[in-house]
């Protein structure tokens, strides 16, 4: 049988995005102070060459500790985790993260769908998925999975997105709990600890 595993019991906010989403994040992250009861995971489409830069860029914009993601790192509340380029990011039951180099999904690795689906299976109603700007349909299937498992799904208001395609795809194919502009997304995240 499977080894003893404790199902982790804390909240997780997972944010996915593609073109234009970094811009949105840069308006959200600087306003977050310490997060206590939850972890934030960021899955962005990125060029396989800009290795460290995304982590560095994000770390500059937030006072929250950004944990570099390596295979099997402990996954804990209070930190931001960023999916590394060229790997899919997966969640394990024993509160670690694992990586996978399998085929691209929606032309992307990391794929937002892959991480959303994997997180949904484990964090169920403790999970909030947020889908930002982008020009591809990645993320829609993942949001469905989060919803199915009892989680909360939020889509950036396409009117406030640099690239509305990705949020539009989600709105057309899922029933988001909230459609929010950047300011409102920030307020939502701020409210989690309270």
């Amino acid at each position, binding site marked *: 049988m*499977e080894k003893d595993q404790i199902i982790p019991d804390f909240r997780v906010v997972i944010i996915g995005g593609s073109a234009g989403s970094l811009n949105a994040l840069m308006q959200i992250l600087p306003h977050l102070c310490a997060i206590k009861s939850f972890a934030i995971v960021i899955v962005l489409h990125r060029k396989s060459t800009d290795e460290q830069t995304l982590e560095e860029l994000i770390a500059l914009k937030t006072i929250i500790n950004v944990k570099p993601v390596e295979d*099997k790192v402990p996954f804990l509340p209070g930190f931001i985790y960023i999916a590394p380029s060229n*790997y899919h990011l997966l969640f394990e039951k024993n509160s670690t993260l*694992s990586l*996978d180099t*399998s085929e691209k999904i929606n032309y992307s690795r990391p794929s937002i769908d892959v991480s959303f689906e994997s997180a949904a299976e484990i964090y169920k109603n403790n999970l909030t998925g947020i889908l930002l700007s982008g020009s591809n349909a990645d993320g829609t299937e993942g949001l469905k999975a989060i919803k199915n498992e009892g989680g909360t799904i939020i889509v950036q208001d396409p009117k406030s997105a640099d690239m509305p395609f990705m949020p539009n795809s989600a709105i057309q194919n899922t029933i988001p709990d909230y459609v929010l502009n950047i300011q409102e997304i920030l307020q939502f995240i701020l409210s989690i600890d309270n």
Partner: protein
Amino acid sequence: MIEDIELETLINEVYEYYGFDFGSYSRASLKRRVNRIYQLDGFAYFYEFLSKIRYDPEYYKHVVDEITVNVTEMFRDPSFYSVVRNQILPLLGTKPFIRLWHAGCSTGEEVYSMAILLKEAGLLHKSLIYATDINAKVLETAKKGIFPLRMMKEYSENYRDSGGKEDFSNYYTANYGIAKFDEELAQKMVFSQHNLVSDNSFNEFDVIFCRNVLIYFDNDLQKRAINLFDESLSVLGFLALGTKETIKYSIAPGKYKQLDREKIWRKIR
């Protein structure tokens, strides 16, 4: 979609019937892979899938081949190859004979990349490169040294970024969508099946590569594999892992020294 409990049943049955133990593979990825085959092969009921695996050894082989993730590239992570070229090969050059092992070599792109580096350093003639995998199908491809021609643009860019100065296209012959690499590169390669879950050390090496294989294993199996590499590595030999992998959780600190920021460790005692 299969359930967690079904996945565990499958793992147990495969072990019982075929002796292969997937029990220490990372569950998140394993589950995705199994679901993928289940769906691709059009099963509607888990017990049908299970009994096909049980009673049809050919189908079982197919399942193992499909569960393993074989995605690979030539000169993947150019900065890694540049460190191998500039810092490791000069140290190996002084040896009369060089033994290398690629564990989990998949279709061989990494092995041919290494042979190119050795050739350019004038070391290929005195090297022997063992390349192993559990997947028999990928080993067949690796032996042939035939890769898709459409990948060559990317590979030659990787090659150049890693410090390669030659014309990359000199290393292969292009033909109907395929690139066949020079036989000369393959002369020093030995391919064979080897399972990191259950097989033992089979030689002593100066360099061991095991890149993007450990990510599919849980911590215990990673430990086993790294100990196997430790046993198979000569003192002052090098162990190279994938860019997001580490020996940190598996081996006593002080025994190995890491090179720069790369995932390369030197055995110092």
